[in-house]
């Protein structure tokens, strides 16, 4: 064991966790059968080096084929998966995970600390130029001091690393090193993990067939013999497939409000909703006029009528947001400092500013992006500001944002088990993701404090103070909270919470 590992052991409290806490509360699970999942997008592949970042459809497949070190339980707290227990250093900059023994990848390769480390090193290696490397810049290194111990050394403290590492993302799922080495370019479409299901066949654009892993480490799981994933891109026909029984569960979102409401009234269907944390957000570039003046920013935020906007874009399903955390987060604020909806005040602020307010806003070149742009345009026009919509494709938004080539950009704070990674990245001065170019010593102090404090109550205080400060300065604003949907046949049971929008069917069964 290395010195670091020994040091971690000595100083850190031990988390006592039950080894088999994965299965949701007792219900009579039935084995056997097969389900079809209707997804929105076609999966392009699983190799992080090729696909870069997993999308929502890939998450579903990844949740079945692969395992992560940890998982989120029903309470939203980290529970064991490939790791059985974990400890941390006092400064939260080093985390040690003890791995489950006797686990094998589908190709027979043993899962151990070395395999885990190789996964990490492959993503991090600058020579591989993986887009996925961006999301692990906070991890300095991963060490494998012995066969069943993995140590994360971080550049910044992370009080909740086991919880934030649970999502079945490109960075967290564990691939078989043997498989990617032997298959080369073909690995992308022939993934090998340790998960409950094994990829059996995959015909491009049509279906991916996953079959039960008979040697899965979690005995008794999975329940279904087969999972078929189908890309059904059209929302109307996807819903029709569920109604006519060709699909057992489908992905859906607020854009498709009519069908969600129809499903709510249908006794043969179940609507699974998860009110996650995070929000749909927008960032002002405070280095550019007119957003270098706080009055303009405040005026624009105050002229947004969120309930009316929700009605316009999603039949009222979207839930207004007044802070970046959302109802699904453990951060609950008595006072988040939200600016009130007040058009008269907004007009007065713009009048006070004295110059005409004209600017451009980036939106995605999709019907939804266009609609959101038009609704905001109308609100702002009423307050006396002129906004021009600039439509760009989805892939153009991140680079434009990182290079600060925007005045106002749409963004997203996704559903993570802890607000720290995103809040720190989005608001700490000097961060490449601090899109607003806004620096404030008090904001930095609060962000630094929140990530090195173990006391949850104190952290909540910090995050609420952060929300008040951002709302007052109006450097970002939030429109709606994240809500995730899946519609299924009422016969499908055991479907877990839709954390981060992942439709995880790997522990479901048919009644």
């Amino acid at each position: 064991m290395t010195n670091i590992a020994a040091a971690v052991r000595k100083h850190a409290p031990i988390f006592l966790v039950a080894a088999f806490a994965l299965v949701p509360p007792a219900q009579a699970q039935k084995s056997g059968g097969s389900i079809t999942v209707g997804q929105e997008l076609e999966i392009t592949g699983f190799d992080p080096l090729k696909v870069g970042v997993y999308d929502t459809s890939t998450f579903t497949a990844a949740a079945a084929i692969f395992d992560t070190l940890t998982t989120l339980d029903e309470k939203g707290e980290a529970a064991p998966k490939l790791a059985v227990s974990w400890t941390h250093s006092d400064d939260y900059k080093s985390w040690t995970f003890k791995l489950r023994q006797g686990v094998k990848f589908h190709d027979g390769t043993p899962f151990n600390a070395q395999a885990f480390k190789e996964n990490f090193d492959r993503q991090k290696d600058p020579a591989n130029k993986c887009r996925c490397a961006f999301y692990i810049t906070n991890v300095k290194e991963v060490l494998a001091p012995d066969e069943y111990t993995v140590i994360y050394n971080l550049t910044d403290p992370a009080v909740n690393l086991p919880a934030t590492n649970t999502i079945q993302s490109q960075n967290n799922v564990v691939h078989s090193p043997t498989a990617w080495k032997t298959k080369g370019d073909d690995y992308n479409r022939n993934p090998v993990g340790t998960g409950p299901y094994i990829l059996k066949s995959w015909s491009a654009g049509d279906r991916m067939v996953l079959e039960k892993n008979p040697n899965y480490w979690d005995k008794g799981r999975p329940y279904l013999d087969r999972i078929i994933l189908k890309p059904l891109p059209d929302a109307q026909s996807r819903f029709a497939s569920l109604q006519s029984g060709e699909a057992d569960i489908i992905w859906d979102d607020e854009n498709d409000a009519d069908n969600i409401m129809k499903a709510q009234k249908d006794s043969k269907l179940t609507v699974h909703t998860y009110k996650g944390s995070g929000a749909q957000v927008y960032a002002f570039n405070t280095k550019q006029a007119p957003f270098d003046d706080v009055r303009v920013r405040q005026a624009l935020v105050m002229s947004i009528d969120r309930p009316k906007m929700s009605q316009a874009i999603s039949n009222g399903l979207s839930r207004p947001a007044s802070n970046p955390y959302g109802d699904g987060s453990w951060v609950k604020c008595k006072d988040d400092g939200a600016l009130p909806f007040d058009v008269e005040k907004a007009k007065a602020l713009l009048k006070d500013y004295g110059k005409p307010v004209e600017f451009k806003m980036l939106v995605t070149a999709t019907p939804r992006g266009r609609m959101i742009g038009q609704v905001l345009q109308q609100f702002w026009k009423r307050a006396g500001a002129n906004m021009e919509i600039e439509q760009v494709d989805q892939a153009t938004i991140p680079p434009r944002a990182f290079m600060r080539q925007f005045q106002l950009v749409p963004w997203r704070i996704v559903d993570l088990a802890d607000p720290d990674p995103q809040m720190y990245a989005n608001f700490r001065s000097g961060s490449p993701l601090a899109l607003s170019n806004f620096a404030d010593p008090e904001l930095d102090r609060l962000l630094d404090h929140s990530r090195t404090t173990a006391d949850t109550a104190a952290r909540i205080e910090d995050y609420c103070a952060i929300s008040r400060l951002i709302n007052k300065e109006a450097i970002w604003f939030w429109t709606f909270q994240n809500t995730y949907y899946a519609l299924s046949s009422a016969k499908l049971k055991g479907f877990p919470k839709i954390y981060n929008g992942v439709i995880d069917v790997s522990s479901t069964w048919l009644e």
Partner: protein
Amino acid sequence: MLNFVVRRLLAILPVLLAVSLLTFLIASLLPGDLAYVILGDQATPENVAALRRDMGLDQPLWWRYLSWLGHVLQGDLGRSFRTGQTVLQAVAERIPVSLELMLMAEFIGLLIGVPVAIACAARAGGAFDRFMTGSAFAMLSMPSFLTAILLIYLFAVELHWLPATGYVPFSEAPLSNLRFFVLPALTLALAEWPGIMRVLRSDMIATLQEDYIALAKAKGLKPARILFVHALKPSSLTLVTVTGINIGRLLGGTLIVESIFALPGIGRLLVGAIYTRDLVILQGVVLLVACGFVLVNFIVDMLYAVLDPRIRHGHA
């Protein structure tokens, strides 16, 4: 005849060259830089510049075109940067689905269009003729996504007769395969038959006014025999052209229909490539489809020449 074939083939060459140039330009004309797309979150100016250099995007357009064309002529249409699949692999996997869909759609279109045209022509101006001509007009103006959704609700959700979405390869289960294709093919055919009907109807009306038809009538031949034996073949020349052109037009329809019915064909591949900015796939598919269209037109020309010898001798 050989002379005619060679002349036509030579005429195709510049067309193919123009097609390749236009296809290549798609990548340059579309907004958004490929380097940005690949790098995404990591698109710093330095990274973008380095990648552009690696991919030759910093070279002049003509040089890139020639080097791309060189590869294409050797059968190398490139590889998707997202999936690692070659364009030819991706197209080979998808083309049978689209071909089956288009052929079935054209077949159903003819099955509806031809009898209706004959019936209309037999009593031109009558109640049936006026009703069908009106219906044809209505069907032409109906967008295919609407037809598709209506068909799905009627036949899949309400009646449970046919599946709403999905696909099985013909080699696996021939009957199921056909079941999956009925609704998508019908959707396309419902937009196809009006064109077929109108062309054949007007040609037949013209043919029925010819002297030899009058003679046949005078001889007391049965109306059905006159219609099917004496009038149909000479009236179907335009129909052959229309059917050929339709196959090209149908490709456009498959973009929407394949997405709605979740058929894994070329249309879906193309939509996916546009959505993910997979320009290599996009270029490759458009090039192959365009070449396919040129080829179909060539075949139609040949058929035309067989049906009417005046054409191959350059008199028509």
